[in-house]
């Protein structure tokens, strides 16, 4: 635990040592606002809820989270610090979990800074704050899912741009797993249980159900499992090709 905390602190501080933290948070807040007010017609629909705000989070994350995750391991490879890290007395797991948690908490900070949206909607009307809290939790879990995918892909390359592009593609597939675009590829040759299994992997389905205010154990289990599986893959990738 102590080592996880040490790696976590170093990684978290590194976001703020460069303009990365500032740029990311500002862009995230601007885009979140633009989506909610202009595309989501927050005012025009005249309802006191944050549905137009949260419903664009998956699309916002699709491009912003890979920008956060791409450096996690690719930068360690590029600069050679992976050799330093892996020869310190820490286990692979401590490194993987510490770095992931730092990125996740950073995404959480960006998300928490959207609190003026919550103040606004409470000022304008009488929203269901339980639903809003659930949606924040769902959004945070979804960010964790995107980040775990991104961390694993970042570990496969020393090139951050490649990590970014592949992460966007894989996240896009996970986002739309329940939709015709992805399912049509499998329909016709794959048996129905497999198609159902793929459909149930969709980020969008699970996030939408949480953001309606229903925190179902299965949705929590889904995100928890997703993060654990991708982090395990992250550790395996690192172990297999530490030096490449």
């Amino acid at each position, binding site marked *: 635990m102590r080592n996880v905390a040490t790696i976590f602190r170093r990684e978290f501080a590194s976001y703020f040592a460069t303009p990365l933290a500032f740029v990311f948070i500002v862009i995230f807040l601007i885009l979140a606002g633009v989506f909610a007010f202009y595309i989501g017609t927050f005012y025009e629909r005249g309802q006191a809820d944050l549905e137009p705000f949260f419903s664009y989070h998956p699309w916002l994350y699709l491009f912003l989270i890979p920008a956060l995750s791409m450096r996690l391991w690719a930068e360690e490879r590029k600069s*050679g610090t992976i050799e330093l890290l892996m*020869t310190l007395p820490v286990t692979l797991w401590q490194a993987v979990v510490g770095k992931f948690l730092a990125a996740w908490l950073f995404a959480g900070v960006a998300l928490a800074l959207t609190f003026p949206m919550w103040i606004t909607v409470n000022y304008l009307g009488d929203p269901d704050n339980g639903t809003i809290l659930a949606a924040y939790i769902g959004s945070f879990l979804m960010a964790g899912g995107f980040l775990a995918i991104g961390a694993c892909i970042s570990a496969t390359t020393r090139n951050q741009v490649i990590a970014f592009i592949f992460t966007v593609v894989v996240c896009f597939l996970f986002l739309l797993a329940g939709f015709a675009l992805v399912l049509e590829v499998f329909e016709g040759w794959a048996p129905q249980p497999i198609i159902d299994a793929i459909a149930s992997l969709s980020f969008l389905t699970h996030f939408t159900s949480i953001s309606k205010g229903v925190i179902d154990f299965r949705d929590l289990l889904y995100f928890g499992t997703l993060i654990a599986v991708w982090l395990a893959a992250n550790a395996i990738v690192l172990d297999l090709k530490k030096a490449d």
Partner: protein
Amino acid sequence: MIEISHLTKSYGSLLAVNDISFTVQPGEVLGFLGPNGAGKSTTMKMITGFLTPTSGTIRVCGHDVEADPLAAKACMGYLPEGAPSYAEMTVRSFLEFIANVRGLTGDVRQRRLDDVIGRLALGSVLEQAIETLSKGFKRRVGLAQALLHDPQVLILDEPTDGLDPNQKHQVRTLISEMSKDKIIVISTHILEEVDAVCNRAIIIAGGRLLADDTPKNLASRAPSGRLDDVFREITTSTQVIPQRVPAHA
């Protein structure tokens, strides 16, 4: 003590390290010599647990590097090739990070930090980001990191690369000062360095161990009595072309 037995590393059909065995005792400063691509860095990466050997065993301070990597890593300090460090961190926060990972606390932590900062003359750059430092300072930060927990075993991959003659002299003095009760392994292609600091030299080329002796004895093998000539003769003979794994293997 470092005990290396039948160490081999292959990449596909290329044998980067080919059946190397040797042991190093406390008090020895071992110079690892060889042309570029000889397998020096690969061997060091295996000793420090970064690379997994294809076959063979390595024990450091009595701990098997593969079976008990954390115990082995805890008793080693390692300066990787090129002295990588986190560029955006300040020297102080980087060294404090290493101190935390190494489990140093309280008075000991402060004493060790003060000691390496003093020894490597880093006092003037403590608050600077590492990426803004000159090559010489970066190398010294890497050395400070390796020395921080006062390890029993030091593995230094080209410790004086990029330093000016004065800094080279300082680092060699530092190594000599520490060498009494420690095991120090350095790789280098600077032969005068071996003369200056090492009391044992191993020459490897093409992944094979070709010579293992004191620098003085090695030098005396050449009619000229110069280490350069011995090195050239040993490493350019035909047998050092990298070996291929036999087709049936």
